[in-house]
């Protein structure tokens, strides 16, 4: 996180709150703190992963970055464009530079539009390239993502799930974006198909120098795909590190718990004594506990954790954590006890 020129996406203090319908007209409107003060940066050509449990705000972060959901506050820069401030036509034009791949290959393609048109549409709408060349480009993209160009005439329902996800990838690449947001791009796919898409995404990144914001709840996938990883819990980043440090030296108890919860085919991992089990489910993002949001489930929680919100501190270059109990020299609580 040093070389500033290299940073494509810079998100600072992003907050997205959703207003809920009031219980009655006299009641205070309650809000969902879906994303609450989140900051991160992605270097050009690298992949930042966001992991976390369901409801931790991963998708909302992605949508905020894509400007597909209203943001409550915060700053976002894409290259040298102030993304958060764009409106109307400017925003429309900026969209060429960032695209998204969705989780559900079934609902993310308009069932009434042919595959070719789905991929071509962004070019038409954003006026990219010479209209005469677009035909060729679409065919090209089809080949790039592993589809046959003659399949352009088909409708989405005539493709399998994996193929549909390939169309989604092609659509995202149509505008030649710099940033591609992938929101759980493989979690709806069969295990055997997941590998196809993951490999495809990686090879495309190499080929086009893409930058990914990669969202997943599957730690295995994140470990495979990402260069840097942010762990989210209840709308906040609790740990932020490069790939190697995060998995070899997780600092936050939640990261630790997450890692130990993943069932492993490796008997050695399974047998490790330092696995910890969490109790219960994450609390509701509406009525947030005071202090550290993880304190209610944290096996190490102390009085201070319930009172004070821990800031995200940098323990060493490229590794930050939001936990009172991690010592400044980077000893996590689970190691000490």
């Amino acid at each position, binding site marked *: 996180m040093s070389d500033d020129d290299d940073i494509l996406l810079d998100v600072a203090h992003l907050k997205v709150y959703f207003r809920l319908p009031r219980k009655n007209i006299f009641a205070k409107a309650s809000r969902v703190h879906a994303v609450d003060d989140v900051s991160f940066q992605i270097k050009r050509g690298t992949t930042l992963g966001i992991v976390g449990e369901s409801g931790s705000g991963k998708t909302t972060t992605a949508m905020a970055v894509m400007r597909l959901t209203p943001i409550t506050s915060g700053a976002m820069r894409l290259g040298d464009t102030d993304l958060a401030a764009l409106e109307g036509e400017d925003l429309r034009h900026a969209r060429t530079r960032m695209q*998204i791949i969705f989780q559900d290959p079934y609902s993310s393609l308009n069932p009434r539009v042919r595959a070719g048109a789905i991929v071509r549409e*962004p070019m038409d709408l954003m006026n990219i390239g010479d209209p005469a060349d677009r035909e060729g480009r679409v065919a090209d993209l089809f080949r790039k993502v592993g589809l046959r160009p003659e399949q352009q005439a088909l409708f989405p329902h005539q*493709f399998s799930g994996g193929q549909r996800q390939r169309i989604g990838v092609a*659509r995202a690449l149509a505008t030649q974006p710099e940033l591609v947001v992938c929101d759980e791009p493989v979690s709806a796919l069969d295990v055997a198909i997941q590998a196809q898409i993951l*490999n495809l995404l*990686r*090879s495309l990144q190499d080929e086009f120098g893409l930058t990914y914001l990669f969202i997943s709840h599957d730690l295995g996938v994140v470990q495979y795909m990402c260069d840097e990883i942010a762990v989210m819990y209840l709308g906040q980043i609790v740990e932020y590190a490069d790939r190697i440090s995060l998995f070899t030296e997780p600092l936050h108890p939640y990261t630790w718990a997450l890692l130990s919860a993943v069932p492993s085919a490796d008997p050695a991992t399974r047998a490790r004594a330092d696995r910890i089990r969490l109790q219960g489910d994450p609390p509701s993002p509406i009525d947030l506990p005071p202090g550290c949001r993880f304190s209610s489930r944290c096996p190490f929680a102390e009085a201070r954790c319930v009172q004070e919100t821990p800031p995200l501190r940098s323990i060493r270059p490229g590794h930050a954590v939001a936990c009172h109990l991690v010592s400044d020299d980077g000893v996590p609580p689970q190691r000490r006890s």
Partner: protein
Amino acid sequence: MTDSDNTQSRQIDEMPETPVEHPFRQFVTMYMRNYAAVAGLLVFVVIVAAALLAPVILNVDPFEMVDVPLLPPGESGHLFGTDNLGRDMLVSIIYGARVTMAVGGAAAAITLIIGLSIGAMAGYYRGWVDEVLMRITEFFQVLPPLLLAMVLVALFSPTLETVAIAIGVVSWTGVARLARAEFMRLRELDFVKAARSIGGRDRRIIWLVILPNALPPLIVNAALTVGIAILFEAALSFLGLSDPNVMSWGKLIGDNRDYLLDAPWTVTIPGVAIFLTVLAMSLIGDGLNDAFNPKLRER
């Protein structure tokens, strides 16, 4: 990453080489599989043809008194008999088809336009727009529609236009709710978000992205709406609130209701005509529904 890996990932070609069926062709095939719906469509086509070709088939003024009143069907060459004023019922039925279909169609169109616009806005924009529009919808929902239509027709005097407008004004709430629900559902789907992320404007998203996907239930509903509008027109005519200058089926029943016991055909024949038309519309609606949702039919 090695080259061989890349080729492996790209050679994938899992498409079965089945002939590609165009969705519309598939739609037609599905529809044709429902015999009742095909029958409904036939009836509908016959009625519309009769309505359009009325002056060609029978160049007679339906108001012309051609014979003795209340001749039973078949007598003196009147296939459907004559009505209480000695007018040929067959002619009345054929010309009545024009008016009935026109009023039914126009009223249904008004219903759909109002309902769709309100439902689409409420479902797409949500928030206070939704709140306001839904309160208006609720308002129209608590007023008994026929009663309101009667008052409206009475207010603006019974003509074809007022009848059609009144029916439209009282029956759009269902369409609005349906459209709203569809828009709410669809706007959350990822392809709508995708449309925005590739630079689609609101208008484009509402009308070109969401609407085509919201159409199937609305089209099914439209078929039923025409049927309901025809029933409405019949009820208003029956209550005497119809345009006296034109012949409609409802008017035939209303005019002849006093002859129910002595000349039952004067009431039964237009009744059957209405019944068949509305039946045809519901069968068509069923057929469309099946054709739009092929999965439902498998059960």
